[in-house]
């Protein structure tokens, strides 16, 4: 017998009407209410930050699956090669293999990573005991609130508001952490504020993020402020959230708009956080 939900009975002819009914509006409204509750709990109590890092720990094995499609695509090219080409390639590989037998094929990769780590370590100018190394796991595509997830060891002492630093400068700060991962709010995030001081004019201000791929803006800058284009800005250490003297970015635009009582100063952040695999976490003193 056909399940009852797959048809209705006409009130006029008592015949079955074979139509799939749309979702019941009452159920949709209930589900919407659930979503609104989730949104309000996130807005007022930051529920997502508490859940998200643990969710990332649960999904950790799945992150390996994410790389699977690209690996498959890169290997699928061999399918379309002719037998002659494959044989030729095989011969070439055999010769190459003889040459490489002495040297470890992973040596280059290891030395590159080692070089990167050395560069990162040599950039550590603050208290060396406060540094710990983390590796990037993933970064979200959310334009206004990009989220960087980094792998941490289960025994690490990484805490909330610790700063994320590379050899080139400041990246963001830790906003949540769990056993194996930490969530980092990037400087590009619209919720991010960084107290900074400019290199030449020595003026204090706050940089607010503008979103991924966009410049940050200095907040509430007086029109008399003497900023210069290309001037570098460093973290000022005010409010003790970020360590003092770490490079943040440089001034790329200064606009004096007639309808605004403040100067519009745009800051280009040091680099895209996507281009880096390793970071330092500086534990605040």
């Amino acid at each position, binding site marked *: 017998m056909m399940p009852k*939900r*797959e048809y209705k009975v006409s009130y006029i002819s008592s015949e079955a009407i074979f139509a*799939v009914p*749309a*979702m019941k*509006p009452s*159920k*949709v409204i209930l*589900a*919407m209410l*659930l*979503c*609104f*509750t*989730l*949104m309000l*709990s*996130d*807005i007022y109590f930051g*529920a*997502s930050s508490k*859940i*998200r890092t643990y*969710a*990332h720990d649960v*999904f950790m094995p*799945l992150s390996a*699956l*994410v*790389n*699977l*499609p*690209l690996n498959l695509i890169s290997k699928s090219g061999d399918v379309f090669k002719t037998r002659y080409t494959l044989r030729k390639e095989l011969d070439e590989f055999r010769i190459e293999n003889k040459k490489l037998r002495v040297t470890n094929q992973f040596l280059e990769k290891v030395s590159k990573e080692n070089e990167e780590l050395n560069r990162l370590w040599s950039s550590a100018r603050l208290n060396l005991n406060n540094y710990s190394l983390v590796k990037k796991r*993933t*970064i*979200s*595509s*959310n*334009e*206004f*609130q*990009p*989220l960087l997830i980094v792998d941490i060891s289960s025994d690490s002492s990484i805490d909330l508001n610790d700063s994320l630093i590379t050899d080139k400068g400041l990246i963001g700060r830790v906003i949540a952490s769990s056993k194996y991962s930490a*969530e980092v709010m990037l400087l590009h995030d*619209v*919720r991010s504020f960084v107290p900074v001081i400019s290199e030449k004019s020595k003026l204090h201000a706050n940089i607010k993020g503008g*979103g*991924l*791929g*966009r410049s940050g803006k200095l907040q509430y800058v007086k029109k008399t402020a003497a900023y210069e284009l290309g001037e570098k800005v460093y973290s000022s250490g005010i409010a003790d959230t970020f360590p003092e003297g770490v490079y943040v970015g440089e001034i790329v635009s200064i606009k004096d708009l007639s309808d605004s009582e403040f100067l519009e100063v745009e800051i280009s952040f040091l680099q*895209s956080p*996507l281009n880096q695999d390793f970071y330092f976490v500086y534990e605040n003193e």
Partner: protein
Amino acid sequence: MNRESKNQFLIYLTLCLSLLLDVYVFPVSFMAIKPSLVLLALIYWNMALPDRVGIAAALLFGTLIDLLEGSLLGLHGTLFLLITYMCQRFFYQFRVSGLWQQSIIIFFLCILYKQILALDLLNVNESQTNLSDVLYFTHSLLFALFSALLWSPVLLILRYYRRRWIKI
């Protein structure tokens, strides 16, 4: 595993695969405009088998995206739910339209989707209620365009998959 459970598993499998592709890290310039495969797959299943996909799938995948992407918890759930309801309500009209007509509907749906995602619900900008700017609007248009262009291949692939594997 009975037929009904197997069908559900196969449908959720495509949604999971779409999610995996969605969370893959691409260059920044492409990340902002890459189409949401979960959204397209969800629309397809709502259109093709409206009695097999519903509130649960919309809520589940919406919440998962919120957790993985860092957006406000419940925001994607609400959007997916609304889109699911609209698809189910109008699936008779949508299903019989031509591919290009469906693509146009997807285009406008995606612009709306992106604009709602830019709502300043955390009140980070005191002067305005929406974080959207010229760059974001351009990204929204490109996102909608790519989604509309991708709709035909997604539909054809999922239709083949449904006919081949899902037995009603």
